[in-house]
């Protein structure tokens, strides 16, 4: 420390003046500069068309093929596929939103049903004008894709994505367990009571380490398919007006009947009699030891326990055929059937496609990529291992499922074709909160006896708050 007299020398005055001027200049520069974003980092914004995909959705070879084919078709459009690693769709959307907040928004994002309305409402661009413009080119695509999948990608009358894959929740049954129980494979029109009776037979014929029915507590494939089956939903479901521009252009009268401008999920109805009845049914299965209390997560350990015969039945989609094959399960060791009929036999699905972000400065190029990714030859190259169900009906063939199974592979697309009321999981723009509330109170409702009604009352309150809250 040095001593300073109360009066400054001329030199000191000049020095402090220079410091002050420097600081003021720095502050002024900082204040007048546009907000620095991640895009200002050298090398970040190289002018490429950036496509963000869920890291685990496609294998690296398929991504390379996807990129190479597009570059060949559009050599003037540099393309960068950014595979974002995430454990599930919710985690994926969180990471995409972080990129957007950092100023490095991609041009296209691979979005599943869980995020369709969130992206459409806040971030996305309707594809209507491009679809109208290229209608002739797209006619073949729409003729191959079920209208329910297309409708699930619409929001308030506009189309936001072209679906390229989907997964409906069907029932996978282990044939080894069925044989052990002396039970035949259930018919397509089996009922909920048939299902319960089958679980009891499986339980009787197995040891204490066996679980007849296993399910995971999540939005897709958790309690929701049972709600659909019982003719209800977590949120009141209706259709937005509009959309006739698309239906009239691409679908015959029979297919477009009753279609609208996309789904609306509004009033929570967790305390309705049918929702409570559904939870009571699942609670009764737990009480009877016919299924476990549902755990959270993505059911990664399920492949192992199903393929080794420690689980008899579980809900899953076409994506599981590839998973079971990789786990070493023979094509004829399992098979798939529709959900059993309760009040209805309506089933649920989730779909995915590319959403264009409104911040994109390359929207025409982005549209070219969307069209390219929906082509049959491109999808065939991308979806080789049966890790999902292609959205194009013509891609589901006996050859595709010969090695992996199941024998009844037609069930995957017939879930849409034979049950046209099969619909998407409820995913309003507030989907994150809705999912959190659903998972939380499903866990509570089924964690101990007689807790269904109180848990559903609390679920209703929290859902009402979530739906009232503007994003």
């Amino acid at each position, binding site marked *: 420390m040095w001593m300073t007299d109360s009066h400054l020398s001329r030199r000191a005055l000049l020095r402090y003046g220079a410091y002050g001027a420097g600081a003021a200049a720095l502050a002024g520069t900082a204040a007048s500069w546009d907000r620095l974003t991640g895009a200002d980092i050298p090398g970040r914004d190289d002018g490429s068309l950036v496509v963000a995909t869920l890291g685990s959705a496609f294998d690296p070879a398929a991504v390379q093929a996807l990129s190479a084919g597009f570059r060949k078709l559009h050599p003037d459009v540099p393309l960068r596929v950014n595979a974002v690693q995430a454990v599930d769709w919710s985690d994926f959307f969180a990471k995409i939103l972080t990129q957007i907040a950092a100023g490095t928004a991609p041009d296209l994002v691979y979005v599943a049903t869980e995020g369709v309305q969130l992206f459409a409402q806040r971030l996305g661009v309707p594809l209507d004008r491009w679809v109208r413009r290229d209608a002739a080119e797209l006619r073949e695509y729409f003729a191959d894709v079920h209208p329910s999948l297309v409708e699930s990608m619409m929001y308030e009358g506009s189309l936001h994505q072209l679906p390229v894959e989907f997964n409906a929740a069907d029932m996978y049954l282990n044939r080894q367990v069925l044989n052990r129980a002396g039970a035949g494979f259930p018919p397509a029109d089996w009922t909920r009571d048939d299902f319960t009776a089958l679980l009891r037979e499986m339980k009787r014929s197995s040891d204490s380490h066996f679980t007849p029915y296993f399910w995971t507590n999540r939005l897709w494939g958790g309690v929701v398919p049972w709600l659909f089956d019982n003719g209800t939903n977590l949120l009141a479901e209706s259709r937005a007006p509009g959309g006739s521009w698309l239906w009239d252009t691409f679908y015959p009268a029979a297919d477009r009947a009753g279609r609208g401008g996309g789904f609306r999920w509004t009033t929570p109805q967790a305390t309705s009699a049918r929702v409570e009845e559904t939870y009571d049914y699942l609670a009764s299965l737990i009480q009877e030891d016919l299924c*476990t209390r549902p755990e959270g997560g993505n059911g990664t350990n399920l492949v192992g326990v199903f393929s080794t015969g420690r689980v008899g039945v579980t809900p899953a989609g076409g994506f599981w055929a590839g998973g079971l094959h990789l786990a070493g399960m023979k094509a004829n060791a399992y098979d798939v059937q529709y959900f059993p009929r309760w009040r209805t036999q309506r089933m649920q699905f989730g779909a995915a496609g590319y959403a264009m972000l409104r911040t994109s400065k390359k929207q025409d190029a982005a549209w070219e990529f969307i069209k390219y990714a929906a082509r049959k030859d491109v999808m065939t190259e991308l979806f080789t291992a049966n890790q999902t169900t292609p959205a194009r009906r013509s891609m589901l063939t006996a050859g595709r499922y010969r090695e992996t199974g199941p024998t009844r592979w037609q069930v995957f697309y017939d879930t849409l074709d034979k049950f046209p009321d099969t619909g998407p999981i409820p995913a309003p723009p507030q989907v994150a909160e809705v999912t959190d509330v659903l998972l939380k109170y499903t866990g509570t409702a089924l964690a101990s006896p007689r807790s269904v009604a109180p848990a559903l009352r609390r679920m209703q309150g929290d859902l009402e708050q979530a739906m009232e809250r503007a994003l």
Partner: protein
Amino acid sequence: MTNTQISAGRARSASAPPAVSVRPPARERGTRLLTALFLTPTIVGIVVFTVVPIVGSIVLSFFDWNVIDPPSFAGGANYREIASDSTVLVSFRNTLVFMVLAVALQLVIALSLALTLNGRMPGWLRSVFRSAFFFPLVLSAASISVVMKYLFNQDFGVVNWLIGLFGIAPVPWLTSEHGAMATVIIVYVWQQFGFSFLLFVGGLNNIPKEIHEAAALDGATGPRKHLAITLPLLSPTLLVASVVGIINALQVFEQPYVLTDGGPGDSTRTVVMVIYERAFEQLRFGEASAVGVLLFVLIMAVTAVQFRLSRRFVHYQ
């Protein structure tokens, strides 16, 4: 600065004309510059990665921000919202219960093992145990939790299979409220106690043998020796272990997030989980920041109380 310089300065200011600044000698200026140069990276790091985020969080807690739209000033609305939010309140309760149980268990296990290893034992065996106890700490908490989730699965887990060999019915480790909290604590303590254990081993080695020998001459043996001699002399280490343990426990996230996702219901939802969910899943960054600020205050308060109490219970040699 030397006394001569101070005297010279005083003398000059008293007798000589004013308006003259006394500059330090060149060598001292060089030393100061060098000191500043060495400190700058640390200070810049602390400012950029600690001070700015803390101040930013406090400011953000008074705004509504969803990442997509610009932030809008909300006053104290976020704090009013979380004060009446049962999930937030339960998460604070869960975190406090977790902290008390996990830290107590961690300290007891670590201290017991350190005392055991401090006894007569071959050197190589002691090294093996030390490495084994410390090893879980170097592993990723998320990876451990994924593996533990398999082990504690009610139907297919190894743990229930093992206890089943003794005729015990399967325990719903992860799917019942008490079971889930107990499992999260077990997994956390298993991974974390190695740090406290190492601290205690170091602390025990620092206690002079002469004190134990003198105590033995006075007739103090076994538990009495530990209570009267070892623990008081180990109290500074205990303070450090408990402060670090409590701060870590109050920020627990990976284990409940992977093992139970906060469930069943809210039974294992912790404060940091709520911050993550509000911010990155529900895009309510203002509310998440408000919860973060409250956690920050809680950690500061608990730590302050610990240091206050340490004046009475911690004995330095």
